[in-house]
Structures are given as structure tokens and as C-alpha cells.
């Protein structure tokens, strides 16, 4: 069996109030897998993404990313190389940097690209995302939706191998949907790239439907 890019092994995650978001969850994601996760509010979609990225630490069990377990305080080579495309609801961009700097920074820091080359690549992706004219603005100027799209551009620019994409805060308009479809479609052309997209009814052709709820994760709709 090929090594999965991501594996959750007997993971239990408790909410701050003590409720189990996941209990003893075993789930794996093969290389090249594409999932569209669905679930109600508080069902655990965002929690699953945060677990997979190592941002949320499981109360028990472990998360194995690209063959190496994620451990708190220990740098993970997959993350250090910038192979994870993390796109949270609000975009997760640095508020004191322009969109261009936000997209270019991981290229410089994780992939050792020179500033000029990093900014060229960043600009090319921002233009493809329809954010070229906004590139010199900070994330607060264009707004949440554009920040989320810029975050997609950041994941694309650094050639992410695993994409963890949350649903955008405040929804998407037609232009943003087009940009997101274009960027994710481009990423999906690479058979080794794995994508876990929460929501994404606007891109029905992406991959297998995944239902998250009642502390479980399973393919297809809830039985």
C-alpha cells in the first residue's frame, strides 16, 4: 500500500468545553486524493483541517504528515519546505504585508528564492487570481474574500503538494469563484497534489465527497 500523504491515527480531539469533536478517528489521505468535505456548523470541518496542518494538537492519537508525525514544538520538514497549502477562512495573511509580499514571503523563506524572482512568481499568481491591481495593498484593503483568494495564490505560487482549504468567510462572488476554480484546477492537474476542500459546492468536479459530522469522517453522504 503506498504511503499516504496524511494519516490520522486514533485521533481524539476535544473542544474547549470538553465535547469530543473526534474520538478515535482513523483517516488517511492518499497522494493525489481530492476530497470535498461537507458538514454542518460545528461539525468539525475546520477542526479536521487544523488537525491535518498541525495547528490543533490532538488530545490523543497522532497525525502523520508525509511519513513523519507532527509534534508540538518540533519543526516538520514538509511544513518547512512550504509544501502545505494552508488556506483558512480568513486567508491567514500577515496584516502588515501587502498581498504581493504575503505571497512572495514563503517563496523566499521556505524555498530560498531571491526577492525579485519570488515577487515575479507571486505577481504572476496574483494576476491569475484577478488580484494584480490589488497586489500592493495590504489584506484589509481588498477585504476577506480577496484575502482568501490571495491565500490560494500563495499556496499555488509555492507549489504546494497538499492543499487544506477552508470555506471562505463571507462567501464568494462570481469573480472569486472563477479565480478559485482556476487556481485549484491548475493544482489538480498535477496527479501527486492532494486537496482537501471544505465546502466548495462551486467546484463540484474536484473530487470525492466527504462528510464530516458526529465525530466521524466518511466518504459520500451521511448514511
Amino acid at each position, binding site marked *: 500500500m503506498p504511503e499516504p500523504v496524511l494519516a490520522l491515527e486514533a485521533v481524539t480531539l476535544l473542544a*474547549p468545553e470538553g465535547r469530543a469533536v473526534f474520538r478515535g478517528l482513523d483517516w488517511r489521505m492518499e497522494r493525489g486524493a481530492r476530497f470535498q468535505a461537507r458538514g454542518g456548523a460545528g461539525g468539525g470541518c475546520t477542526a479536521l483541517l487544523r488537525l491535518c*496542518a*498541525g*495547528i490543533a494538537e490532538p488530545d490523543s492519537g497522532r497525525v502523520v504528515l508525509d511519513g513523519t508525525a507532527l509534534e508540538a514544538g518540533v519543526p516538520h520538514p514538509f*511544513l518547512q519546505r512550504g*509544501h502545505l497549502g494552508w488556506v483558512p477562512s*480568513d486567508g491567514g495573511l500577515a496584516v502588515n504585508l501587502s498581498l504581493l509580499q504575503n505571497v512572495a514571503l514563503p517563496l523566499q523563506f*521556505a524555498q*530560498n528564492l531571491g526577492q525579485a524572482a519570488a515577487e515575479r512568481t507571486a505577481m504572476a499568481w496574483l494576476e491569475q487570481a484577478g488580484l494584480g491591481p490589488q497586489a500592493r495593498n495590504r489584506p484589509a484593503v481588498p477585504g476577506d474574500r480577496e484575502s482568501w483568494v490571495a491565500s490560494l495564490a500563495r499556496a499555488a505560487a509555492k507549489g504546494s503538494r497538499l492543499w487544506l482549504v477552508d470555506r471562505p468567510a463571507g462567501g464568494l462572488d462570481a469573480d472569486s469563484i472563477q479565480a478559485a476554480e482556476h487556481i485549484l484546477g491548475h493544482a489538480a492537474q498535477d496527479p501527486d497534489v492532494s486537496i482537501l476542500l471544505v465546502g466548495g459546492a462551486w467546484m463540484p468536479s474536484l473530487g470525492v465527497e466527504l462528510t464530516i459530522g458526529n465525530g466521524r469522517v466518511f466518504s459520500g453522504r451521511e448514511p
Partner: protein
Amino acid sequence: MPVRWACGVGAKVRHAFALLGSVWWLLGKCVRSGLRLSREQRRVVLAVTRIQIRFTALDALPLCVLTALLLGGITLLQVFAQLSAFGAERHISQILAQLVIRELGPLMVGILVISRSGTAMATEMASRMLSGELDSLYVSGVDPIPYLLVPRLLGGVISVFSLVIVFDTVALLGGFLVAWLRLPVSFGFFLGALGEAIGRRELTATFLKCIVFGIAIPLVCTSFGLRVRRSTTEIPQAVTKASVVSLAVLLLAGAILSVLIYA
């Protein structure tokens, strides 16, 4: 009652050691990350360090100059009143130089840096923690320790050092201005007396204090900012604790260094 009191003291001591341990751990991480930077990462870190220096040192310059000028003049007036009672006015520049260079300069600059930049660093880190920005940076391949903390430490040391030089110079000039108004002293005499008063020990003490304060202030303040976890109401608490603890560290470290060097 005594048991409860002892438990309270024990908890505070344990808390203080835990804080010391976490700050020490953070310093170790900063040093290790700083030494392992690649060429391109170094460029990014230096760019952020330049911004930090501009905020901590350059923007603080007017306040630093004003404080130094007033403090130099006022200190001289007070010292002059005491010395003239013994007819020892001619030692005024030596006493002023030793007071300013040994103690007042580093201490006042430390207080200025805590109040302007330390609190800003704690607030910034706390806000970034709460908004998930630090997590996003980390999982996107940008480790926040070399990207955010190392520049603050470097910027802190360089800024404190530069501000202390400016502070000492302006405070001594302010002192000379007041002395010149009251005594028949020339600038040459004043400079000559300063040269006698400033020795290797004074320079070593100033240098060591600049390094210790420049590292301790950003480290303590960012450490408190990074402890914020759940809500925005934690931010003012973290900022207050950061400024109080860094002030205590400043006074304690200054006193220890002075005792070690001059006692």
C-alpha cells in the same frame, strides 16, 4: 493559615521559574534559528530588523533627546547644590559623567524602549496569535521564530545601544549647558574631566547593559504576547505583565551588572 501562605509563595516561585524557563527556551530557539538561516532568509530577517530599528530607535529619538537633555540638566543642578556645600564644584563633570554613563543612560533608555516598543511587541504578538496569523505563517513554511523574533532581538540590541550613545551624549551636553550657566567652566575643561571620568569599566558596563537590556526587553515582551490564547481581553493583561516584568528584569539585571563591575 501559614500553610496557605506558604502554598501561595510556592506557587508564585514556581510560576516565576516557569516563566524564566520559557523565556530561556525562547532565547535558545532564537539563537539556534538565527545561526541556521540561509542566505535568502538572512535577507528577509535583516529587512525586518531594519524596520524594527526604525521603530525602536529612530522614531524614539526625539523623546530620547528631550529626556536626556532635561535629565542631564536637572541631575547637574541637584549635584551642583550638594557639591557647592563642600566647595567641590570642580568635580561636577566627573560625577555627572559617572552617574549618566554608569547608571542613568542604560536605565532610562531601557524604560523608554519598554514603554514604546516592548508594549508594542507584546500587543503585536498577542494579536497575531489570536488571529491565527502565526499559525498560518508557520504552516506556510515561514517559521515565526526567525522571521519575527530574531529581528526583534537584533533590533532591540542595536536600538538600545544606539539610543544609549545618543542619550549619554545629550545628557552630558545638557549637563554642560547648565554648568556653563552657573560656573566658569569651558567646554575644553568639561571634555577633559569627562575623559578622566570615563574609563574601560564604564564602557564595559554600558556595553554589557545594552546587550542584556536589548535582548531581555524584546524577549520578555514577545514571550508574554505569545502566551495569549483565547480572547482579546487577554491582550491588555499580557501587555501590562510584559511591561512590569521587563521593568523588573531591567532593574535587577542593571543592579547585578553594576555590583559585579563596580563593587
